[in-house]
């Protein structure tokens, strides 16, 4: 156990150091690294629902977009009239001083995080009445509707989008600033879920995943747990959206804020690849997926989506338990699972014998 603790500490420190030095060692790739941390955050938040709780949301990207727009509006609104700013479409001479910019960004991040959390709590009231594939489609509907409504709303620029306030620092500073912001967001997200999974919450949502009717029959407050799981995911997704919008410099509904078919699917694919229902699976999945993505975008341009599609198919057909689940099934002792039993019962996922016996 000591050895495991030490190894875990070394791993954490190594990742922390790598995260801190990356933008200085490879200054030209800061944005790619920043997006990588956002991917880690995506996978961690999706797994809280899809992995730990068994509720496969296809619409978690909604909170990313909501956070992005909420933050943008706050950033502009503290200096300009939002309607005029968006209507001018960059034609009026806008200038944000350094204090204005950072006040707006700070305030915007808070509003994005809390606003997304509140929206998730409200949506959960409606959507958690449905289960399984209906829930998945219902959440997808929310994401698509959010994108369309935003595109039709001229006050926030509609489909034209919004040019974000310009970062006040010198060249290279902007990339570095947002890299560290994304890094901190991902680390906080990891620490939060690590803590959350150490509480009673974890077993309760696992119980909902295994048999929600049974969980209800045991008197669990299932709605509470489901709401907290989604709201926590939305909190971090809202922050990531706010940061991503500023990093890109331009916000529009379909490609940037609510990219259902890219980021919205990536967050699921990464989690499944790494191993759902585990803390580290999503992180491993995000890493492998993102490296694959960058490699295929560089060397297989034009075929990149086909390559990613093949990766997803191989994953769901041959390695449904994901990378971490696959390793866990083969090397349980690495995960501290000890088998004390001598009576022949195996801890592997042997099919329950219930079918053989007449109930």
């Amino acid at each position: 156990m000591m050895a495991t603790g030490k190894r875990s500490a070394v791993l954490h420190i190594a990742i922390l150091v790598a995260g801190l030095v990356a933008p200085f060692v490879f200054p030209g790739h800061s944005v790619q690294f920043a997006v990588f941390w956002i991917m880690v955050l995506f996978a961690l938040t999706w797994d809280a629902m899809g992995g730990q709780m068994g509720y496969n949301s296809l619409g978690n990207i909604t909170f990313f977009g909501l956070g992005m727009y909420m933050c943008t509006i706050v950033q502009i609104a503290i200096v300009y009239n939002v309607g005029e700013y968006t209507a001018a479409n960059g034609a009026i001479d806008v200038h944000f001083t350094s204090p204005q910019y950072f006040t707006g960004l700070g305030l915007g991040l808070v509003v994005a995080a809390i606003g997304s959390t509140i929206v998730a709590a409200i949506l959960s009231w409606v959507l958690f009445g449905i289960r399984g594939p209906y829930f998945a489609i219902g959440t997808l509907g929310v994401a698509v509707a959010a994108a369309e409504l935003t595109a039709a709303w001229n006050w926030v620029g509609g489909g034209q989008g919004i040019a974000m306030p310009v970062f006040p620092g010198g060249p290279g500073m902007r990339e570095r600033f947002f890299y560290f912001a994304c890094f901190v967001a991902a680390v906080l997200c990891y620490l939060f879920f690590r803590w959350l999974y150490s509480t009673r919450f974890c077993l309760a949502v696992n119980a909902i995943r295994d048999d929600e009717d049974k969980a209800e029959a045991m008197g669990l407050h299932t709605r509470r747990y489901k709401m907290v799981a989604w709201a926590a995911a939305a909190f971090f997704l809202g922050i990531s959206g706010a940061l991503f919008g500023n990093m890109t410099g331009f916000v529009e509904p379909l490609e940037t804020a609510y990219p259902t078919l890219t980021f919205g699917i990536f967050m699921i694919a990464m989690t499944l690849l790494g191993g759902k229902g585990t803390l580290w699976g999503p992180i491993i999945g995000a890493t492998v997926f993102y490296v694959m993505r960058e490699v295929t975008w560089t060397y297989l341009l034009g075929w990149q989506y086909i390559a990613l599609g093949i990766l997803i198919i191989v994953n769901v057909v041959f390695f449904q338990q994901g990378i971490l689940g696959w390793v866990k099934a083969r090397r349980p002792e690495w995960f501290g699972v000890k088998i004390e039993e001598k009576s022949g019962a195996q801890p592997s996922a042997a099919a329950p014998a219930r079918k053989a016996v007449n109930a």
Partner: protein
Amino acid sequence: MSDTIIEVRGVNKSFGGVVANKDISLTVERGSITGLIGPNGSGKTTLFNSIVGLYPIDSGSILFEGREISRMNVQSIARLGLLRTFQQTRIFSKMDCIQNMLVSLPHRQSAWSDMFRKYPPELCDKAEHLLEFVGLYSKRKLTAGSLSFGQQKLLEFAMALMNEPQALLLDEPTAGINPTLINGLIDRLKRANREYGITLFVIEHNMRVIMNLADHIYCMAFGQLLASGAPADVKDDPRVIDAYLGAAA
């Protein structure tokens, strides 16, 4: 003075044109072991589902400790201390036995903040103690889904005890259990009733089991209550025998 814990008054429940329960009235005394027998399809499980709030009843009234519960949902009723086990046995299959037990702790007074607490060592001890009680201690670290059907039934029973209910509705607790283990199970059910003071209301097909176990038995057939009384009386009641074997026309 009799102390009624569950009272069912004139309950009707139909599914479309099929009448599953017709004007059922019965009472379960606190601290008793009450049996419910009847041929397949006679409406026993439907009645259980209605009592625990899974099905809304068409008419009638269901009281638990004097409180009307026929309009309450499953979770609220469970939190009052009226729990059920399932005929098909339901456990949390990807979690290990200890985890199954811990998540089953009573949720009666659980506040919002409780979900962010950890499990205190006393609860883990209690979980292990109850697993020991049903004879699953050596399997405690195994995934519940890897247990045999009979072991899963025992686990489900232990989970119900962990929840500290006032009354427990057991739907065929011995179905699918190895006959040599049945005596042990009867003994444990009786001990749960006596030592933990849990009222048991049991659906059972195995006549030997129910005659051994119950203080009072109700018999249903075709959605109606047919007979009730002490085990020996019900067993010899010609209407009960007819219901099971078919009346001589």
